[in-house]
């Protein structure tokens, strides 16, 4: 037995009714390394991680997993046992209690009890110790819901470390993080590595593997394609392994010819509707017909607030104006935005885009019922026929339109959200981070679709946290910083460095 191997996964097969999620999976994770795990949605990464963390107990799969040379047998309350053995997972959906402090969250379920009451001083001092040791920049007394996503994640990591985690599994930790926060996370992972903690790192962002990992294992259709040292890989090769075919380009070439300016935003200011704080401080831009305008910026720079304000579902515009086809317009709410031909594909499709328990059909038609409905009746046949048209056009992969939206994969869910807004016949389509958390293949399809829409004359405003994506897809890029527009770049002049300097406000 090799001393340096902490996890040895041998011939693991896991079947669900009707589908084999893992098919004879074998690979090794070295002690103290950062091991990347890569693959499209449905490749089997999450299933494997659920086995490692005890969500699927020992007797529900075939094959063996050796942990520190011992057969890993997680049975009974297996999740608990995995944690005891030092295997912890930081989920994509954070599992903290929002109303509690960082300290309370970290010690949840293992509060130090003395004479029947909790010793809170110890909770907070121990929390502080852990935070210091790994250079985590949060305060033990902070209430979790007031923290940004990045700090919540640090709390989550600290929680795992407090349980003496030896193997830390991070499932898409950066999908909601800004560039600065990603950099910070990378630093933390480096610290963990120095402390001898092994990390398994799952992400959809290819470049992150090259920033941080030592080895990468690529999975496809439930099988391991390859495990290689990261330094021997290139991103092209990695993508090729993932999709199983050669991908010539990440961003499809469009044939876009932007026309006249149709929409102008002139120096708008807006306030947060709840806190009354000014979040937009002078944003100006214009949008041409058939153009894709990218909006870049760090988290908290006001990108989402800007598009939500334009859509009429955020704060009041306190100053400035918007002009559509040269005529000044006011938008009170989403409904009036739609009437002006402005649609919005929101940032978080599960929270803002879809009614998950409802059918695909009902989701697509929801904002468009007016066209099928008279006072006392919805023409359900027309509704179905029209929705089917869009489902076909966007190639939504589903057995029927009557299945609930929650049963679809992320990419297909996003297509449903896009369908519902395309049906409203927009002139301007705002897309807030349209490819977040979806796999490479689905991303490519969304990009192609965006090109087609722009070619048809629809103007697209696209927010993205992925710099390569903004550069790859936009005609022009507006960079936001601290609530105002800090410059608009023609695509020919746009580089990652220039965008970052504008976004951080150095320039």
């Amino acid at each position: 037995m090799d001393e340096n191997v902490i996890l040895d996964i041998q011939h693991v097969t896991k079947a669900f009714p009707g589908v084999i999620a893992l098919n004879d999976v074998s690979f090794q994770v070295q002690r103290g390394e950062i091991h990347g795990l890569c693959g499209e949605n449905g490749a089997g990464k999450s299933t494997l991680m659920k086995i490692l963390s005890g969500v699927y107990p020992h007797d529900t799969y075939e094959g063996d997993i050796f942990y520190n040379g011992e057969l890993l047998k997680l049975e009974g309350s297996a999740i608990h046992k995995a944690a005891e053995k030092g295997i912890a997972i930081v989920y994509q959906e954070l599992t903290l209690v929002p109303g509690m402090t960082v300290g309370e969250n970290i010690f949840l379920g293992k509060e130090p009890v003395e004479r029947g009451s909790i010793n809170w001083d110890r909770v907070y001092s121990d929390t502080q110790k852990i935070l210091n040791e790994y250079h985590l920049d949060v305060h033990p007394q902070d209430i979790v819901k007031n923290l940004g996503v990045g700090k919540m994640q640090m709390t989550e990591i600290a929680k795992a470390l407090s349980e003496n985690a030896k193997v830390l599994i991070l499932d898409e930790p950066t999908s909601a993080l800004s560039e600065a926060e990603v950099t910070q996370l990378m630093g933390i992972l480096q610290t963990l590595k120095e402390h001898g903690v092994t990390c398994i790192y799952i992400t959809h962002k290819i470049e992150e593997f090259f920033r941080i990992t030592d080895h990468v294992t690529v999975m496809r259709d439930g099988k391991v394609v390859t495990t290689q040292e990261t330094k021997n890989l290139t991103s092209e090769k990695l993508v090729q392994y993932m999709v199983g075919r050669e991908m010539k380009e990440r961003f499809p070439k469009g044939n876009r010819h932007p026309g006249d300016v149709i929409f102008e935003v002139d120096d708008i200011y807006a306030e947060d509707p709840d806190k009354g704080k000014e979040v937009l401080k002078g944003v100006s831009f214009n949008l041409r017909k058939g153009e894709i305008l990218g909006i870049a910026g760090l988290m908290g720079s006001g990108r989402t607030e800007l598009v939500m304000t334009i859509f009429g579902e955020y704060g009041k515009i306190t100053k400035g104006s918007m002009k559509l086809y040269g005529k000044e317009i006011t938008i009170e709410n989403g409904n009036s935005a739609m009437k002006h031909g402005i649609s919005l594909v929101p940032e978080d499709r599960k929270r803002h885009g879809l009614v998950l328990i409802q059918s695909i059909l009902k989701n697509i038609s929801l904002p468009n019922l007016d066209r099928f409905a008279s006072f006392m009746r919805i023409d359900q046949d027309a509704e179905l026929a029209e929705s089917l048209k869009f489902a076909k056009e966007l190639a939504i992969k589903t057995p029927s339109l009557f299945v609930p939206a929650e049963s679809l994969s992320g990419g297909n869910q996003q297509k449903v959200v896009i369908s519902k807004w395309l049906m409203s016949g927009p002139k301007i389509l705002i897309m807030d981070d349209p490819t977040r958390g979806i796999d490479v293949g689905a991303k490519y399809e969304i990009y192609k679709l965006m090109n087609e829409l722009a070619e048809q004359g629809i103007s697209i405003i696209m927010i993205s946290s992925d710099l390569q994506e903004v550069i790859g897809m936009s005609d022009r890029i507006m960079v936001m910083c601290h609530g105002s527009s800090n410059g608009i770049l023609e695509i020919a002049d746009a580089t990652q460095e220039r965008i970052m300097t504008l976004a951080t406000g150095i320039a």
Partner: protein
Amino acid sequence: MNFSELGQRFRKNIQTYIIIIALVAIWGVFAIITKGGYFMPQNISNLFRQMTVTGFLAVGMVLVMVTGGIDLSVGKLAGFVSVVAALFQRDVWFHLIPNQPVLAAILTVFVSMIVGTLFGMYQAYIIAYLRVPAFIVTLGGMFILNGGILLATGGQTIAANQPGFSYIAQGYLNPTIGWILGVAVVAILVFMMFASRRTKRKYGFELKPIYQDLLKTGFFSLLVLVYVGVVNKYNGVQVPVLLLALTAIIVSYVSTNTRFGRYAYAIGGNREAARLSGINIKKQLFLVFTLMGLLSGIGGVVLASYVGYGTIAAGQGYELDAIASCVLGGTSTLGGSGTIFGALVGALIMASLNTGLQMMNVAPAWQYVLRGLVLVVAVIVDVYFKKQSN
């Protein structure tokens, strides 16, 4: 269709089937214990008549719960309306239009509907536009109405047993008219089946084999005819049951075939997504709670006519029966799903337990215990099967 497909379909509709199975099981048990007495036409007739007040409240409650809300005031609102109706019957119309019982009854119905709707609107406004949680607003409403009932009655019982008015909850249709009605319903069911197949074909969708549609339509037609046959052996089709059926059909139609209904389900399913889809949430919530008030008003009239009096205890606890009916019928307490049909079957189960236990002379205390247990067990079974089908 092969068996595994059949099984899949069954699992998908498990909630609908479970509750019907539960109803049949409860009936079976009582039928055995009472040696068939439970199925006497008189008992069946009373059983359905008994569920009507709760039924009206449950129909409205489904929509309220579907939006993610709750209404604790409906029982007391129905009670208050029943007292108001009794007062109008005894004091107002008696002096203004002394010899016109039918007109008086009709006017009372209108007054009751208006009172219910107005109180519904008052609560709806606070819930929808001032954004106070429905639980609190309607809890307050419950107290207010309780006071209202005491004030209106002065602690006394008010007679509401005038001839025209009594017909609302105690009247029966002539058996011949009952049969005509039954046959008409069957004709409508068959017509609807073919109409739906025709439009489906027009849009080029795949049609289910005709025997499936025929089986379904045939089953429901049979139910209607058997029901008419049974109640005709007693006094005939009960007027309040007919009113409830009409109301349920209308609200059920509205809930699935109009924007109002669709929006209610979308709001309960995901409020943020609904808002960003351009739906005016405040307006929709206002309408839902107003409709609840209207239906409570109708429930109140039927209650007054059924009991024959307006009393201080009127409507006591009905809100809980209505909520229990909805939950039994598969309405999610978290919002987003639920059907009128299910809630009515739920109400029928509650009524079935009531009459059955009364027939067995079970002490009232134990009746409460058993009803509570049935509710909880039903939900446990439901949760279990949902897990299975996942």
